[in-house]
């Protein structure tokens, strides 16, 4: 095709994130005319998408599995709660907060970049030693980080309310705000993936030794991916905090870690399109089984409610997907423009 090369390249660059965002927008518009319960479900799924996109920035580009990113979610969520609650409430509940934070109150939108940056800063400090590890040691290292964060946040009453929940977080994340942050997450993930850093990392993921031999500083690049991904996951934590309105540390431990990793792997952990697709698919499945669990009548036949049945069905479906598509639904392909040979990743 004799189209101007530059415009063509830009179009091709834009295609994948544009399609994903259009898909999300369509889902959002459909949900907005639906009942309130559906809107909440879709908002929740979009927040998960922010987290999974963040997780993908690290796992997808480096090939190292992280069990610890939920820690960044917790850091973003609590930071945002501290920044946006009223000073009066903070005085009573959180005696150990630094003076500066205790006396200021920011609008929710202004708290978003700060909360995300806090998560990124922690990632930078932890990442400098941690990124020296690779493979399963790195995974366990990230998990140890999560366990430390959960133990500290879960017991430091003067900072987080400890074992009792933290209440009074302004509830502001609605469908459209979640959609906005999800789009931001998609753009950050795509930009990183197609940047020089992202491409070098993807090379090192396929062949670590060859990448090192070609002079790629894998440690530094992985650290960059770790920090960027923590920023996005922290943003997801921020959105989650203002979605729930009530925070407890239990919400940031194993369940959400498993479900987000599950979404990523089922969609295809080497592809951003896969990450988005995994979130959508697993969310739909979760919602379907949740409704089935409450009991229903199909064609006049009463199906009794059976707590636990829905999760059993979900587990079987997930396992079947993995058996038939071990590399996830998308493998390592992206949604490509028509006519393109297969978008390279």
């Amino acid at each position, binding site marked *: 095709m004799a189209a101007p090369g530059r415009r063509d390249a830009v179009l091709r660059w834009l295609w994948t994130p544009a399609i994903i965002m259009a898909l999300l927008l369509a889902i959002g518009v459909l949900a907005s005319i639906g009942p309130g319960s559906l809107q909440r479900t879709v908002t929740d799924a979009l927040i998960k998408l922010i987290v999974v996109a963040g997780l993908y920035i690290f796992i997808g580009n480096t090939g190292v599995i992280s069990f610890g990113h939920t820690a960044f979610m917790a850091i973003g969520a609590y930071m945002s709660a501290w920044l946006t609650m009223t000073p009066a409430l903070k005085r009573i509940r959180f005696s150990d907060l630094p003076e500066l934070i205790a006396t200021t109150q920011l609008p929710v939108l202004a708290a978003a970049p700060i909360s995300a940056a806090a998560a990124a800063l922690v990632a930078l400090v932890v990442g400098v030693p941690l990124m020296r590890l690779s493979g399963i040691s790195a995974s366990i290292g990230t998990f140890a980080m999560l366990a430390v964060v959960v133990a*500290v946040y879960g017991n430091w009453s003067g900072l987080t309310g400890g074992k009792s929940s933290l209440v009074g977080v302004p509830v502001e994340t609605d469908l459209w705000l979640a959609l906005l942050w999800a789009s931001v997450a998609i753009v950050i993930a795509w930009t990183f993936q197609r940047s020089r850093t992202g491409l070098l990392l993807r090379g090192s993921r396929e062949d670590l030794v060859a990448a090192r031999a070609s002079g790629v500083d894998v440690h530094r690049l992985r650290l960059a991916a770790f920090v960027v991904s923590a920023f996005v996951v922290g943003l997801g934590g921020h959105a989650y905090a203002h979605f729930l309105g009530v925070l407890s540390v239990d919400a940031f431990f194993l369940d959400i870690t498993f479900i987000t990793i599950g979404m990523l792997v089922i969609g295809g952990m080497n592809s951003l399109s896969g990450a988005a697709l995994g979130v959508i698919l697993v969310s739909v499945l979760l919602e379907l089984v949740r409704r089935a669990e409450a009991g229903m009548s199909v064609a006049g036949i009463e199906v009794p409610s059976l707590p636990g049945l829905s999760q059993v069905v979900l587990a079987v479906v*997930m396992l079947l997907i993995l058996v038939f598509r071990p590399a996830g639904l998308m493998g390592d392909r992206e949604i490509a423009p028509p006519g393109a040979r297969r978008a390279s990743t």
Partner: protein
Amino acid sequence: MSVFLQAVVDAASVGGIFALMALGIGLIFGIVRLVNFAHGEFVMIGGYTVLVLAGAPTAAVIAATLIVVVVLALGVERVAFRPLRGAAMPTLLVGSFAVSYFIQHVVMMSYGGNTVGVDFLPQLSESIAFGGVEAPALQLVTIAVTVALLAGLAYGLKATQFGIDMRAAAEDLRMARLLGVRTNLVIALAFAISGLMAGAVAIVYVAEIGVLRPRMGVQPALIGFVATVVGGMGSLLGAVVGGFLIGIITVVLQIVLPLELRDFRDAFLFGTLFLILLVRPQGLIVVRWARERV
């Protein structure tokens, strides 16, 4: 002196359980590169088996529990993990999440999500005094069970044909198959042994904590998994060392931490493990063949 001895007994019994968990997980990882998170559910099912059989003679309960868990482990291998064999590690990992999730919720459907009390071998909670130390009999039983299983496994791996096959499969599964090792059989056997370990843990663990719930296996499995990696992934000796090490760190922290910091024990525990990993990324015991090949 008796404080020290007391701590040693504590560390050995806590560490023993972790070591058995780590060994059950490490055995499977060594051969099929599968991180089996469902190992915790093997323990949980063992616990519920004890509950179902409450009232039967102790020996029968123990035997039945071991059999149920071994059969479960074999069944899971055949139905879920064999179709996934050869897939990349993340896929195997999420597959084992799914299995663990499945088993938990099947139990939840029958028994609900709440804790259920079970009074198994109450006579073991009585203390036995010896050499200035007073320890519940259960701790001593735990240590004895750990030692017996470790010795049995060590002998089996060194001296029997199956053991030699298994070590060969762990070193290089494809090569072992080319040389005539029946890999399906060896892998099934590894799952059976892993199940046996989980069953043994279930029995002592249930006698100790006295309550059951569908998620009771998650925590020990995670600690067992961390122990395998800190000890040295792929090394069975490493798994045992890692398990005991976590037991020792836990008990030492319990003693040395001031009261106001004791709630944060897990933070110190995992912080310490994090540091150990940074110093020894391959784990404490490095196996030559477990390194990444170029």
